[in-house]
């Protein structure tokens, strides 16, 4: 009995190592997919579907955004507000995404519709559709931590990229490259 007792400590370590190996190895497979500029590592939203929630639009008036809106084309969803200074900073980069066969959707987050509207008139409106999320509910479904945040959505309605914080030249180039590849 004592003979095999001596291997027990090693076996315990071995089992733990196998478990951790499978875990670390599995991570490698998703590594190419998750791209984010967030400071806390990869975004858990990448790979998920866009929310089923339906929201009204500010522009065009009396429209709706639901998950059908995202079907069939690459979409960039950008959350902004008129009170957000960093959104004003990133606005010129967002404008750079216009065209490029990308559907550009803005979501006005926790802001009054009229304020967002006048902000867009003042700063220019690159968005094809602007949704109204004055209560911040849509933002909750998207798991955002603050604005600005930007999502890239595939024609199947899946989130394929997520940027927390303002986007710049590098991120815009990254998005264009991704869309051009497909």
């Amino acid at each position, binding site marked *: 009995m004592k003979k095999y*007792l*001596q291997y027990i400590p090693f076996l315990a370590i071995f089992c733990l*190592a196998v*478990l951790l190996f499978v875990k*670390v190895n599995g991570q490698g497979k998703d590594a190419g997919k998750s791209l984010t500029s967030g400071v*806390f*590592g990869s975004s858990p939203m990448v790979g998920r579907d866009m929310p089923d929630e339906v929201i009204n639009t500010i522009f065009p008036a009396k429209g709706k955004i639901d998950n059908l809106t995202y079907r069939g084309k690459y979409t960039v969803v950008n959350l902004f507000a008129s*009170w957000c200074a960093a959104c004003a900073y990133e606005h010129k980069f967002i404008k750079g995404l216009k065209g490029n066969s990308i559907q550009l959707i803005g979501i006005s987050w926790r802001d009054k519709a009229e*304020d967002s509207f006048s902000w867009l008139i003042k700063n220019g409106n690159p968005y094809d559709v602007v949704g109204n999320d004055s209560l911040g509910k849509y933002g909750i479904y998207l798991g955002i931590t603050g604005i600005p945040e930007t999502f890239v959505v595939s024609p199947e309605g899946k989130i394929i990229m997520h940027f927390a*914080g303002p986007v710049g030249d590098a991120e815009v180039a990254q998005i264009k490259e991704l869309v051009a590849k497909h």
Partner: protein
Amino acid sequence: MLNVGQYIFLTSQVLAALQMLRLFTREKFVKISQENLTAACSFMVLSAYIFLTWKFVVSDFSYALIYKQSNTLKPLLYKITGLWANHEGSMLLFIFILSLYNFAYAVLSRFPRKEEVLGFQGALIFFLISYTFFTSDPFSPTQLLNGQLPQQGLGMNPLLQDIGLAFHPPILYTGFAGFSLAFSIAMVVLRNKLTDKSFAEFSRPWVLFSWSSLSLGVALGSWWAYRELGWGGFWFWDPVENVSLLPWLFGTALIHLNYTTKKFNRFTFVTLLFSILTFLTALLGFFLVRSGILTSVHSFASDPTRGLVMLGIVFVISSYAMILYGKCLTELKFIPEGRMDFISREFGILLQIVLLAGMGITIMRGIIYPLVLDMFFDTKISVGEPYFNLTFIPISFMFIFLAVFAPILKWQKERLSTVVKKSFPSFVVSAVITIYLRIKFPDNISPIITISIFLCLWLFLSCVGLTITRMVKREKISKSFVSMMMAHGAFGLLGLAITLNIAFAEDTERLMKPGDKINFGGYDFTLRSSSIRKDSNFIAQTAKFEVAKENSIIALYPENRIYFPSFTKTHEADVHYGVMEDIYINIGESERSPDAKHKKVKAAMEDNQQGGYNSAEYAFPSRIYIKPFMFFIWFSVLVMAFGGFIAMLPKKK
């Protein structure tokens, strides 16, 4: 082509390899003693470390690490500490601290088999440098863009630009790295089949020093989280915190086991096991947070190859240790000296080890269980406070209960009546105080809080009482008695402070605009004004709060910051530290005040466009916390650590 830093780094690796090879062959390769070889290796690591620090200070962006992590705008302190605010640099810091230990050990230790211990230490350095050099080289050059060096670095995570971070990693690593000596000594004992108890005496000071440093390091991390993360809490049962707690628990067990081995050669196998496990759990912690398995502010950019290589190294080290241990378990026999009664300090220690191991297993299960679920059942869960409240707290209650008797019990044998007699006065006093508190504050004190207050108070008062008794009776007060009283009493105080903090903490959240005044927790809080200030690497929106109670007024300045060049936003809480309670204010992103008139808002928004938020129309979601007894939490950890440092000092001759 290698650069200067890489040359120095590789030289130290070669020296460490020579140190390690002496374990397996009689061939010396170079004609210098193991001690001098260790000193040379330590010197090279020191040079590599100083070299990189210097490059950080002068912001040499030809190094990728400095380009990614630093910035000329950063204050000097954070340029220096920026070295370890990332994966590569912190590995270098760990190797650096480990090599300092090796040097100190080579100079100070009188262990007869010192050379072999240094061989194992060399092996650890060798493996760690290999890992660092081949998967995360801190000296790798920047990829040039169009043949041009970048003019400015990308900057460091602003959350880490804090005085707490400046000292948390080095002190924590001082704790982790020091346990390597206990590990190596245990390896030498097992490899040579030494049945002599003397090794415990030689590893004791290093274990005590490491344990004290680790306590301080964990507390500093917690202090950083308290100040910087703005949640008003100090311990979140975050997986990374738990991982740092494992070596602490096992190290605590090791300290106590060292005494039983040193005195009576008793539980020596357990002592050896814990010598090994303490360091292995420290390595496991490294692996878990660096491989990205656990996500937190420590995970940096995760890269699966790094994780695999690190896992390989930890696996090689731990399986060598475990196979050796397993073999000795059947072949070796330690003969305890003297006899042990059930009512004795040794038996108390044994029970305490069981509880500490139980706590360790609880934490391990909290870490491993979600991984298993995710792997086999594709379910994601997060293990947090509710789990630990249910599992950890009952064990820690038993642990505190045992700790009460530790200083009372004598080695080998003690009469039950003496134990009862000595513990009774503090029992009565703490019971009376607890009942009084329960009646006075029935809303704050739930049954579980009552038990906790009672036990912690009992432990604390018992230690204070015993010390006073000895002083009054003019009995001899030895160094070991003082250190034990400090560590145990402070542990009671720590538990008490945490419990009371949980029971009496208050917080409120209000939308406040300049001029608003609220009364909360006996204080008047007035938001006086808000303004913008610019520092070297951030812009801050500062709110000025006046906190008034009776005749005294203090001002607090919580801030929202935007750091350059990354545009990362942080919320800086401002804390007024008091002995009895802290006042803690955090503000959120300013929003338009709800009752402002539309025109005024427009004017304010124009104002906003010009870079100023300084407008009475903006309101801040303000969170105010009153956190009692925070001071005692930090203070008691400090006392505990000093207890460890005192016990470490050599005996007077």
